[in-house]
């Protein structure tokens, strides 16, 4: 398929605008809370636990019920079916009954005639708690062996033996904070009771099918009785994979009980307190290496803060394990992965899904090796890169067949003038007493596919109408990433129609069933292929029809630029053809189905081929820090990122840039703080600081690799792009680390942890200064 020749608008590979861009900018794009509410709509507010860990002795909701505007209240006993919204393990009650395990856990709900009335009333509950000792940190959880699911271990080679004989050995610890998704649109669901006990739910969700299942279970109904619809989300980032089900279920239970439409929308503070976040991690490492920095053996202990329940912590931590190698061949490795239970909010999916934490672990170790050997960290990175034909098997026994990191990093090193700037920075730092600059290049290799193999399937539905216009539906959801646009481009390309002829319709569990979450960067790979198959089916029918009608071979029926060429001398418009096909009783509707080939993975032995392929990228960041205050500023960033043959370079560029900035935020200004009683104190944008405009470096050079094609047969040889660029932000952290360690002439480690807030940077500088003083 030649894509470059298409003259249609919105062809594959074109920089077509987001399908909703004109609606976004005019305020006409409708999100769940913008849907015109049906008459009689009621509003629900969630009553939350005030304690991190306690037994509920008594709960008195008299004042709540008596409050102005209140219609009813819901508690655990009002749930007709299963009191659960846990997606994997049924350990997440909709309403806590007897025991609460985090401050913010849902205990009851208030149904009222206005949002304000519901929220005011929710504060009037009188709950008597018997407080229990909470576990609030990873360290506490490890000490108490408090886990949400069992620990796993991965071994390849013999790390103990390798560590024992290595010329150099380093041990240390790294702590990484979590991250709030801070999607701009908070969690929201609107449930509409339909006839015969059916329920329609408008949910801001990445996973309508899971919502459908959990609502069905909560209402004690079947999937056929529940429809979940999502036209778009105001951002997801993983935070709307499992989390929306709580709201969808509560709204549905309330709607069923009252017979009214019910909306449940969280205020920003509630959203940040009640819903899960990125897992914070604690990493212990023990690494042995030779004079060149080649890692000979490594032990990792990865412990994550899963919060109170399992949620997606199993696969998140698996992915952390699978990315602790990043781009490096680790011949002898042992990983222990603890999934710690604490009495804080249950953590969940977030762009990268454990991958960023795994990568941070190995990148940190590489940096420490460089300090120890007094070499440039980039040299240590290169020494350890996976080989092409050898040294190319991951610790989980998958052969890396598509390694392009050598060429990619070499190109970036040249483009960014890394070596020249390295020298400039060294001389600047010698003469600048207060400000210090730092530089780092970090690579990314990210595995694409759900590690839960069965999720790697997708469906699509295409309806072609008599006038030649097309409605496209698929199981993927639109959260801003441009999935609808990309899939529409695929269909436009297949039919050779202007993209304006194709309408993207809301994701709807009654149109395409049994969908997977739009997650794991897989949206375009899976749904693009499913839509392509559906379009191909219809197109084949049309081709056969034309071939029969005109007595020409099927090969001579060509769809091109909005027209259908029949043999060498006839042609008609697509619309003319669809009208004729209809009159000839040809079906113009088809579903399409796709499942990812080649992948096979055994969760018991943690081995196999969990990923169809890898996406690659690298970033060079330069920062300047203030040694008096710990403040930093990112001065320049150069990125080279691999998206295969891009379906839409403008959209992919948006993912790369946005992912990078989000990753940078995670490791710098975004700090989650809990107080000593387990209360989150950073629960609004006034206290939780995501990057703003001025945080974008003045000098920001981002390029997509223009020579990469996916060697696997993905949709038009493109690659997934949602998550991988997030981890480019790791370069900022290491540039800060570099600047901090320049204070000790790069001779000692700063032991800096993430996020590198001004306070953490200043503390790290103090550690370096102390090390210098003590001659370490």
């Amino acid at each position, binding site marked *: 398929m030649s894509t470059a020749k298409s003259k249609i608008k919105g062809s594959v590979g074109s*920089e077509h*605008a*987001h399908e*909703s*861009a*004109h609606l*976004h*900018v*005019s*305020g*006409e*794009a*409708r*999100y769940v*809370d*913008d849907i015109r509410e049906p008459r009689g709509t009621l509003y629900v507010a969630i009553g939350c636990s005030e304690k991190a860990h306690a037994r509920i002795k008594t709960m008195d909701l008299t004042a709540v019920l008596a409050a102005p505007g209140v219609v009813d209240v819901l508690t655990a006993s009002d749930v007709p079916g299963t009191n659960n919204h846990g997606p994997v393990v049924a350990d997440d009650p909709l309403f806590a009954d007897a025991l609460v395990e985090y401050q913010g856990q849902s205990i009851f709900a208030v149904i009222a005639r206005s949002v304000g009335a519901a*929220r*005011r009333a929710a504060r009037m509950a009188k709950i008597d708690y018997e407080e229990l000792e909470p576990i609030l940190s990873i360290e506490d959880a490890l000490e108490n062996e408090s886990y949400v699911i069992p620990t796993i271990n991965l071994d390849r080679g013999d790390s103990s033996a390798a560590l024992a004989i290595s010329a150099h050995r380093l041990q240390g610890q790294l702590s990484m904070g979590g991250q709030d998704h801070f999607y*701009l*649109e*908070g969690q929201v669901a609107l449930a509409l009771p339909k006839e015969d006990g059916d329920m329609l739910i408008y949910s801001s969700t990445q996973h309508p099918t899971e919502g459908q299942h959990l609502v069905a279970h909560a209402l004690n109904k079947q999937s056929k009785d529940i429809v979940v619809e999502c036209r778009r*989300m*105001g951002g997801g980032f993983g935070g709307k994979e499992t989390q929306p089900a709580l709201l969808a279920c509560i709204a549905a239970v309330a709607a069923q009980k009252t017979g009214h439409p019910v909306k449940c929308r969280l205020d*920003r*503070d509630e959203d940040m307190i009640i819903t899960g976040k990125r897992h914070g991690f604690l990493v212990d490492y023990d690494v042995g290496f030779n004079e060149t920095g080649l890692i000979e053996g490594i032990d990792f202990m990865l412990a994550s803060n899963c919060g109170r329940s399992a949620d997606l912590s199993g696969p998140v931590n698996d992915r952390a394990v699978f990315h602790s190698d990043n781009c490096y061949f680790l011949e002898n490795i042992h990983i222990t992965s603890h999934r710690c239970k604490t009495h804080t909010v249950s953590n969940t999916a977030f762009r990268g899904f454990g991958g960023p934490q795994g990568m941070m672990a190995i990148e940190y170790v590489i940096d420490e090796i460089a300090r120890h050997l007094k070499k440039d960290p980039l040299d240590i990175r290169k020494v350890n890169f996976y080989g092409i034909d050898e040294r190319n098997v991951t610790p989980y026994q998958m052969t890396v067949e598509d390694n392009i990191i050598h060429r990619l990093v070499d190109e970036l090193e040249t483009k960014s003038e890394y070596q020249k700037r390295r020298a400039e920075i060294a001389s600047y730092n010698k003469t*600048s007493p*207060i*400000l210090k600059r730092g530089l780092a290049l970090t690579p990314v290799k990210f595995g694409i596919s759900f590690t839960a193999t069965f999720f790697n399937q997708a469906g699509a539905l295409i309806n072609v109408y008599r006038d030649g216009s097309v409605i496209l539906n698929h199981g993927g959801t639109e959260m*801003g*990433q*441009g999935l609808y646009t990309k899939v529409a481009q695929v269909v436009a390309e297949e039919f050779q129609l202007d993209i304006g002829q194709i309408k993207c319709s809301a994701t709807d569990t009654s149109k395409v069933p049994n969908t997977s979450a739009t997650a794991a960067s897989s949206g375009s790979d899976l749904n693009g292929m499913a839509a392509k198959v559906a379009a191909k089916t219809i197109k084949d029918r049309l081709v056969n029809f034309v071939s029969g009608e005109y007595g020409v071979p099927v090969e001579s029926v060509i769809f091109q630029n909005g027209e259908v060429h029949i043999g060498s001398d006839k042609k008609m418009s697509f619309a003319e053809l669809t009208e004729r096909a209809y009159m000839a009783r040809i079906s113009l509707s088809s579903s399409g189905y796709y499942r990812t080939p080649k992948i096979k993975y055994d969760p018991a032995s943690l081995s196999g081929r969990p990923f169809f392929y890898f996406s690659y990228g690298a970033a060079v960041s330069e920062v300047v*820090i203030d040694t*008096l*205050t*710990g*403040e930093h500023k990112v*001065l320049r960033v150069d990125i080279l990122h691999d998206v295969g043959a891009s379906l839409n370079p403008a959209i992919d*560029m*948006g993912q790369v*840039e*946005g*992912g*990078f900035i*989000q990753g940078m935020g995670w490791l710098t200004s975004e*700090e989650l703080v809990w107080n000593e009683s387990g209360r989150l104190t950073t629960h*609004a*944008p006034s*206290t939780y*600081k*995501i*990057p*703003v*405009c*001025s*945080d974008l470096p003045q000098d920001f050079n981002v390029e997509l690799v223009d020579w990469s094609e996916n060697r696997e047969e993905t949709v038009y040889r493109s690659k997934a792009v949602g998550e991988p660029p997030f981890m480019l932000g790791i370069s900022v952290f290491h540039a800060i680390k570099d600047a901090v360690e320049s204070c000790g002439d790069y001779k000692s480690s700063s032991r800096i942890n993430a996020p590198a*807030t*001004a*306070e953490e940077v*200043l*503390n790290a500088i103090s550690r370096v200064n102390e090390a210098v003083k003590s001659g370490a």
Partner: protein
Amino acid sequence: MSSLNIIRFYLNGQLHEVANVESTTTLLNYLRETLLQTGSKEGCAEGDCGACTVVIAEQQDGRLRFRSINSCIQFLPTLDGKALYTVEGLRNKDGSLHPAQQAMVDCHASQCGFCTPGFVMSLFALYKSENRPDRQLIDDALAGNLCRCTGYRPIIDAAGQMYEYGKEQTAEQQTVINSPGSVKALEKELVEQLEMIKPAKDKKLGRHFYAPLSLDSLTSCYAEHPEATLLAGGTDVGLWVTKQYRDLPEIIYLGQIEELKRINIAEGFIQIGASVSLTDAFECLLEHYPDLDEIARRFASPPIRNAGTLCGNVANGSPIGDSMPALLCLGTIVRLRSAAGSRDVPMHKFYLGYQQKDLQQAEFVEAVLIPLPEEQHVFRSYKISKRFDQDISAVCAAFNLVLKDGVVDEISIAYGGMAAIPQRALQCEKSLLGQNFELAIVEKSMQVLSEDFTPLTDMRASADYRIKVAANLLLRFYHEVNGAAKNTTHVLRYVG
């Protein structure tokens, strides 16, 4: 219903009249829930994310000004007499997109789209106030808008590119909205409209929302309703409602009083009235104290500075308010007024303790008086926060120094974030006064700060960090006084 109970404003060019509203109905909720205009979004309901940004046009000093505000914390009655623009009102007459909108589309500057209406409105305000802004101006103009998807690069591009589209317009297509900057001829109609709805008498809007027109009627209104909440910009009071769900039985609004909107320079003082926005106050202060620029830029965000007032910041007296360290340090006087008359209190005596001020019943801050700069003084003000823009200080510091022959002749040092109130560092000042301004003395004085302050640990910073960085900011000041270039002492000033 008397016309004195009707809120009148222009909404996207159409006269809009409302009566019988709850005094604390926010503009955002009114737009979304009553008018079903859902283009403006709620992202945080505290004026921190900008998804709800709208633009207000007002006459000021004979100039028409278009300024962004956060509709989520603006009470509807404050709209009386103004012209409001929302994202729904920007399209051209022929239905085509406004330059700010088209540039956003063409630059691929929206992803999820939820923050986009707010960005469009901030860009619109920029479009109407600056021509060809540089990166710094764009960053400043957009500091109140959060985007979680794009990483901002395409939005910054759109801010530059939007000016290209106006060039293609014919004279007939030009409107006051779609023309960049100020075009007097196009503004005529809007100016007339604003004149027409200008309140002529004290109004009572909503249940108990008093909007007096003069200082005298404010004074007597407050004497009659001493329990009333005084409202100026509403950037704090708004949150009492949206976050704390507090009932405010009575509100007296200061925003319609011309006398309080004035800035006067006389008798050695810059007098800034209670209704002067932070934007206007800083604009004037910067002429006299250019070194306030960093605080001025980094104080909250443009929509907050456009609505909020300097006197409100002072009267609120938060220990982490950003204006007070500088104002304390400059010897500011707080002018108070009540039915009994007016009195002046030096600012450092105004703050008595946490949330306690030297304010009698029915007494209010009428103005702050900032002394004009003395010759020979060196003034600096610094802010430390997790994020440079639109963040609340962990520590804010201000220094004002007069040196004579290398000896400290006058010194005042004040901090925010270090105590229950914004406070002078008197012991530290004492240890410097009369001494040579040299490193050894400064280092000794840095240690003295722990006698002045016992700061708290909270989500913004630990007590240890606060005390350490407070001392180091004195060191930064020392280096700058001794000629160190700012680009060697401060990452924000660093130029590669």
